[in-house]
C-alpha cells in the first residue's frame, strides 16, 4: 500500500474516533446529568437562567437534533461561555493552552533526553547493576504522586537550597520591567524572538521545577519501554550479524538496535504527552502556572461544566492527532510499516 493511501486511511479513522468522542462528551454533558441546564449555568442558578439555558441548549428538542446542533457549534470553535469568567471559552483557551504546551513539551524533552539513553543502557546491560538501577528509577517514577513530588522539590530547591523560584512563570520584578510580547505564547520562544535574554533566563529557571516534576511519569514509561524493546531487539539475528562484522558495541546499541527499538518508545511518549496535558492539571496548581490545568481545577471547584467539557475535547483532539503524527513518523522510520 502506498504511503499516502495508508495515511489517508488513518486520517479517516481518526475523524471517526473524534466523532465518537463527541458522542461521549455530548452524553456526559446532556444526558447523564439530571439537570444539564443547571450544570450549564453553574452553581445557584435562578429559574430564569435555567429556562434560558434550556433554550440555548435546545433541551426541548429531541436528542438527535440536540446532537447535531452540538456538533455544528463545536466545528465553529464554539465551546460555549465559561460560567465563572463569562468569557467565551475559546478566548480563554488561547492564553492557557500555550502555557500548558510549553510545560508539557519541556517535560517530554526531559523524559526523552534522560529516559532514552538510560533505557538503552538498561536493555543492553540486562541483569547488571545499571539495569537494576534504571528499573528501580522507572518503577519509582510511575508510582510517584507528582503533586507530592512537586511539594518536595519546592521544599528542597526553593526553601532549603534557594536555587530555583517556588512558582509562577516569571518573577514579579521581571514581569514589570520586561514586558513580554506574546507571539506564540511560549515564553521561552517569545523572549528569544525579542532577543531579551534576561527574560529568557527568568522564564527558563521558572520552568525547571514544574517541567522535571511533570516529566516523571513519562520518564518512567520511556525507560521501561526502551529497555524492554531493546532487550527484544538485541536478541534478533541482525544484531549477531552486526557483532560478527566487528561493529563497536556502542554503535550497535545506540544506532543499529535503537532505530528498531525506538518506535514503541515514541508511541509511549506520544501517549505520555497527552497524559501530561492532564497531569499538568495538578502541577500547574502547585506551581501557580496559569495554563489549562489551573483553568480546569478552578472550573471543577466552581462547577463550571462547559469549561471541563471543552478542555476534555481539546485534549482528546490532541490525542487523536498525536497518534496520527506517530503513525506517520513510524512509517518514515520503519520502511515495513506501510505494508500491513
Amino acid at each position, binding site marked *: 500500500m502506498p504511503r499516502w493511501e495508508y495515511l489517508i486511511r488513518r486520517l479517516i479513522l481518526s475523524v471517526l474516533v473524534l466523532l465518537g468522542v463527541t458522542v461521549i462528551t455530548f452524553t456526559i454533558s446532556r444526558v447523564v446529568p439530571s439537570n444539564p441546564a443547571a450544570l450549564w449555568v453553574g452553581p445557584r442558578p435562578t429559574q430564569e437562567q435555567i429556562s434560558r439555558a434550556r433554550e440555548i441548549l435546545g433541551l426541548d428538542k429531541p436528542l438527535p437534533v440536540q446532537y447535531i446542533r452540538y456538533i455544528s457549534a463545536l466545528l465553529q470553535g464554539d465551546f460555549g461561555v465559561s460560567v465563572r469568567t463569562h468569557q467565551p471559552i475559546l478566548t480563554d483557551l488561547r492564553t492557557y493552552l500555550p502555557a500548558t504546551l510549553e510545560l508539557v513539551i519541556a517535560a517530554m524533552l526531559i523524559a526523552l533526553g534522560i529516559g532514552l539513553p538510560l533505557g538503552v543502557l538498561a536493555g543492553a546491560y540486562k541483569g547488571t547493576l545499571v539495569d537494576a538501577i534504571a528499573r528501580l528509577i522507572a518503577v519509582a517514577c510511575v508510582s510517584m504522586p507528582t503533586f507530592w513530588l512537586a511539594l518536595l522539590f519546592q521544599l528542597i530547591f526553593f526553601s532549603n537550597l534557594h536555587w530555583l523560584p517556588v512558582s509562577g512563570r516569571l518573577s514579579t520584578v521581571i514581569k514589570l520591567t520586561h514586558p513580554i510580547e506574546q507571539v506564540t505564547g511560549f515564553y521561552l520562544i517569545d523572549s528569544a524572538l525579542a532577543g531579551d535574554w534576561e527574560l529568557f533566563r527568568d522564564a527558563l529557571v521558572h520552568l525547571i521545577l514544574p517541567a522535571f516534576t511533570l516529566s516523571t511519569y513519562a520518564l518512567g514509561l520511556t525507560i521501561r519501554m526502551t529497555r524492554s524493546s531493546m532487550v527484544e531487539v538485541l536478541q534478533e539475528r541482525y544484531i*549477531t*550479524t552486526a*557483532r560478527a*562484522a566487528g561493529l*563497536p558495541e556502542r554503535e550497535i546499541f545506540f544506532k543499529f538496535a535503537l*532505530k528498531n527499538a525506538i518506535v514503541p518508545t515514541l508511541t509511549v511518549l506520544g501517549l505520555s504527552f497527552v497524559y501530561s496535558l492532564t497531569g499538568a492539571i495538578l502541577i500547574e496548581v502547585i506551581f501557580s502556572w496559569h495554563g489549562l490545568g489551573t483553568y480546569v481545577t478552578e472550573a471543577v471547584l466552581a462547577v463550571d461544566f462547559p469549561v471541563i467539557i471543552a478542555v476534555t475535547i481539546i485534549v482528546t483532539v490532541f490525542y487523536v492527532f498525536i497518534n496520527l503524527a506517530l503513525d506517520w513518523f513510524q512509517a518514515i522510520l520503519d520502511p515495513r510499516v506501510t505494508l500491513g
Partner: protein
Amino acid sequence: MTEPLLRIEDLYVRFRTDEGTIRAVNGVNLEIMPGEMFGLVGESGCGKSVTGLSILKLVPHPGRITRGKIWFRGENLLEKPESAMREIRGRHIAMIFQDPMSSLNPVFTVGHQITRVIRRHHHVSRREAWERAAGTLDDLGIPDPERVMRSYPYELSGGMQQRVMIAIALSCGAELLIADEPTTALDVTIQAQILELLNALRIRRGVSILMITHDLGVVAETCDRVAVLYAGRVVESGPTDAVLQAPAHPYTQGLLNALPRPSARRKSLQAIPGSVPGGIEEIPGCPFHPRCALADDLCRSKTPIMTPVDSSGAHLAACHLIGKSEG
C-alpha cells in the same frame, strides 16, 4: 604440510539455565585448511551453531566457553581481549546465518549496511566504500548493484538477501567464512545457486569455508572434509567421500539412511530412533548409546575416543565397534 588456518582444540561450551547446566559443546576438535570447504554436520541441538559462534566468541548469554583453544593464524582467539576480537570479526573471520531476512537489519538500506562494515575495517571515504560495496555485489553476480544497495532488505528476494549477506561477509576480505545453514531457508533452485556461489568464491578468492549444516546432501556436493557432531562431540571426521561412502559410526550410518537417495536401491527411509539428548544430564559412556542398536556394556560405561578407521589415517570415528569388527 601446510598449517591449518583454524584449529579448534578441546572446546567446551556450557549454558547455565534455571533448569540446569546445558552441555552444548563437549570437547570438539577440528582443523580447517586454507582454501578448504569444511562441513560440520549434525541434527539441530547437537552444538554445531554454538561451535560456529564460539570461533567469533559470540556465544549468546547465558552460554560460556569453559575450556579449549581456538588457534587462528597462530594466535589463540580465546585469550584475545574483546577489542582485538572486534578487529578480527568481519575483517578476518566472517559469518552468515540461516535466515537472511532476519540477519539483515530491517530499517537500514542494504548499501548502508555493507558500507558501514567496509568503513569499520578500512579507512576509506563514504564514496570509496560505496563503490567497493557495489564492486563486491557485482563480483557476486548481482545485477544492478546500485538498485540493490538503495533497497531495504524486505524489498529483496531470499536468495538476493543471502547474496547480500555473503557480500557483507566478504567485503573486507575475510580468510574464513562461517556459513551456518546458509541455504536451509531457501528454495531448492536458489540453494544450488548459493552453494555454487560459495564454491566459486572459495576457488577464486581462496576463502576457507566452515559449512554448518544438517543436510548431508549439501556436504556431499560442496565439502572437502566433514566432521559429524553428536551431543556436542565430533563422532566421525575425514574426507567427505570416505565418510559418506564408508561411514564408520552408527550415528553417521543412521544419518545416511535417513537421507532420500534416488539412485540407491529402493530401501525405505529410516529415521534414527529416539531424539537428540537435551544436554543437561550427563550421559555415561558413548553419548549415542541410548539410540544405538549395537550398544553393549562397554558403550554404556566408557566414552570412545577418535580412532583411525582405515589405513590412510585421515578418516576417524569415535566408536568402540571399530576395533572389534576388524579384530
